[in-house]
């Protein structure tokens, strides 16, 4: 059940934007397609909705094949029984809030439209504004109407195309929670497309990271953050520092010769070029005079600059040829030396894959 995508390919003319991807969304699962713009995530979603026609590959919704070009099979969007929320909201300006929400019920010939509208508006907390025109609503309210409209006819599948990207930051946080809650209540599979890692990490049961039309990695949010397979994923999800390293004998060391202890589970000699990933929050940054615990990596660097952010100061520190971000509560002046300490297990080796290599590797 849920969604099943197999070997999906989408080309526009000679230009291929999706290179044979496969994934499933289980019943009731919230899955996010995450990636930079142009990675093919929205096209994938639109193929599932039936708004774009795939070139090859199959798509099944709840066990029923809805798209299979090889067998000349294509179920148009209005027969796929889905609810979709668009980036632009796409709330129809000539209809009231209630009429917008009633639309999917009336076109599907529902018997009790009024009850369906009341239910959907209640869920998104817009009951009081039912008779308003969209032009009288704020962006956040319009997005709620779009959400109510998407769920009104109880679709068997919910699709979200960057629904929060036009909202301001605070509204985005609130709506994020709301969407998660509604999806859990409805217990339907949901596929969510975004380029925002915070949204992906906070809402999803599972995240699929895409790049240049291919799936780079998929897993639950914790796994993706903690165990990214390559530099691209590490960089895209969360703040990341990279240290250029080289193998000398059985050891790894920085380009300036300092030895570096890395997470042994990642220390595989598979012939691919490696780079060390170090999250800013794993680094302890001190003045040289402060004594530091032993048994850890200890590097000396030079403070380049700092930004006061309130809870802490974010510093840029130069270690050899690499520049790292690190947080500290103490005041360090630019140009002064600093000591960076971190656990070996926080320093992971990942594939240092430029984009082209990532493609051939995962093809």
């Amino acid at each position, binding site marked *: 059940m849920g969604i099943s995508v197999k070997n999906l390919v989408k080309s526009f003319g000679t230009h291929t934007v999706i290179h044979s991807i496969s994934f499933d969304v289980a019943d009731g699962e919230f899955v996010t397609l995450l990636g930079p713009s142009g990675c093919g995530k929205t096209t994938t979603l639109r193929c599932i909705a*039936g708004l774009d026609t795939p070139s090859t590959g199959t798509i099944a919704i709840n066990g029923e094949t809805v798209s299979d070009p090889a067998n000349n099979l294509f179920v148009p*969007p*209005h027969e796929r029984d889905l609810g979709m929320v668009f980036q632009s909201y*796409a709330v129809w*300006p*000539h209809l009231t809030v209630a009429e917008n929400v009633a639309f999917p019920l009336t076109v599907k010939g529902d018997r009790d439209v009024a009850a369906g509208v009341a239910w959907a508006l209640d*869920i998104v907390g817009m009951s009081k504004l039912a008779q308003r025109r969209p032009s009288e609503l704020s962006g956040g309210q319009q997005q709620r109407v779009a959400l109510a409209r998407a769920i009104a006819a109880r679709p068997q599948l919910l699709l979200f195309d960057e629904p929060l990207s036009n909202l301001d930051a605070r509204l985005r946080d609130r709506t994020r929670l709301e969407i998660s809650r509604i999806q859990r209540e409805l217990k339907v599979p949901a596929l969510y497309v975004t380029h925002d890692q915070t949204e992906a990490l906070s809402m999803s049961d599972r995240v699929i990271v895409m790049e240049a039309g291919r799936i780079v990695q998929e897993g639950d949010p914790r796994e993706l953050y903690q165990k990214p397979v390559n530099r691209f994923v590490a960089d895209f999800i969360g703040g990341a520092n990279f240290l250029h390293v080289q193998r000398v004998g059985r050891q790894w060391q920085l380009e300036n010769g300092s030895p570096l202890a890395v997470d042994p589970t990642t220390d595989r000699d598979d012939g691919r070029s490696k780079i060390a990933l170090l999250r800013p929050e794993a680094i302890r940054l001190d003045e040289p005079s402060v004594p530091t615990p032993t048994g850890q990596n200890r590097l000396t660097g030079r403070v380049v600059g700092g930004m006061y952010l309130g809870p802490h100061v974010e510093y840029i520190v130069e270690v050899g040829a690499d520049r790292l971000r690190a947080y500290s509560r103490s005041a360090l002046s630019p140009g002064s030396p600093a000591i960076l300490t971190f656990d070996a297990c926080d320093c992971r080796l990942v594939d240092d894959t430029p984009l082209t290599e990532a493609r051939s590797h995962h093809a």
Partner: protein
Amino acid sequence: MDRGEEGFRLETPAVRVRPNTIRRAAANGGVLIGLYVVVFAVVAFLALVPLAALVIGSLRDTSPGMPGQWTLANWANLVSPGVVETLLTTLAVAGLSTAFAMAIGTALALVIHRTDFRWPNAMTGMLALSFYFPSFILAMAWIVIGSPGGVINDILREFLNIESFSVDIYSVTGIIFVMVLHQVPFVYLTIRGPIMGMDPSYEEAARTAGASPWRMLRRVTLPMLAYALASSALLCLVLTLEQFGIPVLIGVPGHVTVLATQIYLLCRFPPTAYGLAAAIGLTLAAITSVAILLQRRLARGDRSVTTTGKAGKITPIPLGVWRWPVNLMCGFYIAVSLVLPGLILLYTSLIKFFTANPFDATFTFRNYLYIWNSEETQRAIINTIIVSGGGALVGVLLGVACSYYVVRLRPTGYRVLDALVMLPFGVPGIVLGLGLLWAYAYLPLPLYGTLTLIVLAYVTRFLPYAAETAGARFVQLDRSLEEAAWTAGASRLSGVWRILMPLSLPSLQSSYFLLFMAFFREISATILIFTASTSVLSVSIWSSFEQANWGFASALSILAMVLMVAMMSLLLWAMPGARRR
């Protein structure tokens, strides 16, 4: 879980409608594909038949429908001294009219929208009214005023006893004068948008850099409007090149011939030369098409005028000592283009024998009574209302269908459809009429002598406007508005009907209004294809004026304009969308 638990009364309302089983891709929107084929065929028929008939006609040595031989003589005759002279006259008249109309129209637009002129709204309203003043009625009024036996000469002779000086409207100058009066509102209306949409910060930057208001106009405003001005000038040139009503009424008695009237004369007066008329028609269409292609290229390349949408408050330029000269200029234009012609027609319609002195005149209502008693005239009025009301609807619907395919669905061959829709844009009305005349002499379709043929001609001529208006609206509407309807369970057709059409309604209404008004006063496309039973008001007015029945023609004109204003008000009241212009 405050609202959450309530949310769990999930079992209540919705009846699950299962999607139908598997469908083939082709089955999706079969109706739309079918309609596409029909629309494509209709548009191809409308656009290509008259042109193909003209090409064939230009190669025949007889009249339409007569047995004859193939010949190249018609094309050879294009370089005869008579035709060449007509061509040069046409270019001179169109060029000069455009130059004057551009100067006056642009000046008016700048005065109204850039200075502290006192009555901008009144002036805009008057200009819009005079935009709808039919060109051939304007020409008639000015013939009454300026012909050898007209008002001005009467005054010169009878009141001032001046014999040495007289005016004669039946001249090149007369044609240009009336054409300029007629084109000024068009120039104003096309320049107005770019002027109002201009980002005020460019002008403010010039002012803060120390430029005087007039220097700013010369160095910043006008150069920034260069594209808009050039594009307006080209369209104005096209309209003056194909203008028929003015040169036929003024030019024919004065022996001044332009291409459009020569086509008419060759078809209407023996010895007729339909083949040569066809060759001239194609030549004229080629000239106007080149101008239109140039205009489109210009319009596409226009990046100089930034319409930011936030049309900020612009500090108006103080007119100062120029206030009264400017006021006089505006008043003069409205007087000669609108008020004076209207009053003269009213006066002429109410007197028995023409005299410029109202105290010598015998007033009578007989002209109006004659309308009341003339079945022929009543039929013309009813025909006009049917053709304008129904024809405009057909035109708008066809335009909408074309735009939907060209802008939205883009099926195979949509570019061809786009080109076909735009093709009649370059074909002058008289040429289109001639094409249809040739076509229906050969085509085995019972259309000649029917109102349908007139509607066909009008729809063909104005389809580009209808399609462009609808297309501009569709481009503005985000695709996701329709996609949201599909994902909500609506078929493509239902999405068009329930989402796209309601959202485009204001544009469609304004397009209907424009077409209605254009159809109401159209004469050039009708003049060669009307018959006694399919005569329309414009033709009736024109033919009674041709028969020197000034009084009756004036009465009919007054009636036509009263009808137009009534229809305008009715349409504007019924269709709020048409008000935005």
